């Protein structure tokens, strides 16, 4: 039968579909609606060491085939997460990827240590790419040294799979993937949201209280797929791809471009029951193409040099 499982370092996922961080709360919100153990994994909402208020509303704006968000990482802090949410997630059999954020390299390491101690965490995703906060986040993700330092610091304190999440707001995303790989990352995930804004022309004010926000959704998919493709050529460690996935074909597009697993964010807002539909679509694809499992799809993009005989133009 069709095998949907994939492996990221030491972590085996039943299927490649991970709920994207910030788009699935702490997971527990969906426990009544979705069987959490049917997901490949759940990347929970980004956590700092301490509780955070986040930005005032308005926090989201819809844009053509996308949305901007400037939530500002409202969150309960890593300790309350471990105490209040993690046990419930594990009780549901969820694979838990904890997305963490710090204002300093030390804060990342400290959070990672707490998660390492918590025992039941499956992987750590380093959010070095959040466009919505003034300190930390993208500050590290936009500097090769910053990326390297955060990954290396976390690597020192935990054996859990470590996966920095790269920002697309850079000239050469592959160089950041290389920096992460060199610092000991087990995988990279990409992309986080694109820094963007929207203005209410009647009031001439920004639509988001934070002025700037992050663009997600199908609008960005073609750029995200390109970036996965570029990183695939630059690094050996697995890639977790995301950005605008709405259908099983979109999942496959990322996997063919080189992703081992994917995350689904905005689509979950549009259709919280999307998971079964995506899994059905993946199974149908394997059947249609007579493939035993999904791993054969990873990085299977065929690049064929087509020779242009045309010499002049009209």
């Amino acid at each position, binding site marked *: 039968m069709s095998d949907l499982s994939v492996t990221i370092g030491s972590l085996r996922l039943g299927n490649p579909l991970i709920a994207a961080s910030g788009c699935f*709360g702490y997971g527990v919100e969906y426990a009544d609606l979705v069987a959490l153990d049917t997901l490949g994994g759940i990347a929970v909402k980004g956590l700092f060491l301490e509780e955070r208020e986040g930005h005032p509303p308005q926090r989201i704006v819809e844009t053509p085939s996308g949305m901007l968000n400037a939530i500002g990482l409202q969150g309960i802090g890593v300790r309350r997460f471990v105490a209040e949410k993690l046990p419930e997630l594990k009780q549901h059999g969820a694979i838990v990827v904890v997305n963490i954020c710090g204002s300093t390299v030390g804060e990342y390491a400290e959070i990672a240590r707490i998660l390492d101690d918590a025992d039941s965490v499956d992987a750590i995703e380093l959010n070095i790419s959040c466009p919505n906060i003034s300190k930390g986040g993208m500050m590290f993700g936009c500097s090769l040294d910053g990326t390297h330092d955060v990954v290396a610091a976390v690597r020192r304190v935990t054996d859990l799979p470590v996966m920095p999440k790269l920002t697309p707001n850079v000239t050469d995303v592959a160089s950041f993937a290389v920096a992460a790989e060199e610092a000991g990352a087990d995988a990279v995930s990409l992309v986080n949201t694109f820094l963007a804004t929207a203005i209410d022309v009647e009031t001439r004010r920004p639509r988001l209280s934070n002025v700037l926000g992050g663009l997600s959704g199908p609008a960005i998919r073609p750029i995200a797929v390109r970036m996965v493709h570029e990183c695939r050529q630059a690094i050996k460690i697995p890639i977790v791809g995301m950005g605008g996935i709405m259908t099983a074909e979109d999942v496959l597009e990322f996997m063919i471009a080189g992703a081992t697993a994917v995350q689904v964010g905005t689509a979950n807002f549009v259709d919280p029951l999307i998971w079964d539909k995506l899994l059905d679509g993946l199974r149908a694809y394997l059947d249609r193409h007579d493939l035993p499992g999904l791993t054969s799809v990873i990085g299977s993009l065929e690049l064929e040099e087509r020779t242009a005989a045309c010499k002049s133009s009209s």
Partner: protein
Amino acid sequence: MPTGHRRKTTRPRDATGLQVYSARMPVDVDAVVISNTQLSDFYNVVALAAPDVARQARPGQFVMVKPDQGYDPLLRRPFSVFEILRDQDGEVTGLSLLNKRIGVTTRRLYDVAPGERVQCLGPLGQAFDAPAADQQAWMVAGGVGLAPFLTLAESLVEHSLTTRLFYGGRSADDLFYLETFESLGVTLELTTDDGTRGHHGLVTGPLQRALEATSPTTSVRLYSCGPTPMMRAVTELAAAHGRSTDVSLEQVMGCGLGGCYSCVVPVTESGQPTRFVRSCLQGPVFDGGRVDWNQL
């Protein structure tokens, strides 16, 4: 036939292969539009064949709706459940939405044709708290803020409570379903901005007079839905008379399920600092006295 996508694939299935679900769990239905009644140039009522949603809905709850396929518009939009629809035998057949055309999705819903389909997820959020047995219930509605009050009125009348509706609109053409409320036994206090029907002015005018005319020993519970400044004014007016108010807030909502943290409302507990709580989970109905209106 609309198909209800049920939660949790791990739930047991019944003999028909459909999953069995317990009561009060949101379901997502690809609902057929039964009818579209345009009430004015801006308002209409869309009836949806979504019995599985309707059966569970309690007054004040909402649904997340998407009339269009494709990614533009992308997200669903929140709507109050306006009516629970029943057939001659009293069987629930669906629900209706009171829609006010203000943007992309509401324009689409204004024009939707019978037979088209609308994705409808619900019921979601917290319902209004029922009043105590000896309380009067006063509903204060502004414009499309009428939406949650028809089901509330029905449930209040079922418990045979004294109910009043203070209802304001732009003009006489903007006040709807008056006979329906009246036939339920609801006392109406109407206002219009232009004076073409009821009192001339804001809905808070008659409300203030009613509050002043009511003995403090009479227990009154207030419910309010409408523009934010109106709900704030109602809350403050009621508080000045020692009454508290349930408000149904209209925050922008990305998911309706607690996933995105877009819909937060600043809430204060006595003495505590303001906290942002998710309106889709802990609302949309809040105690108006707990809302930090300055931050909203």
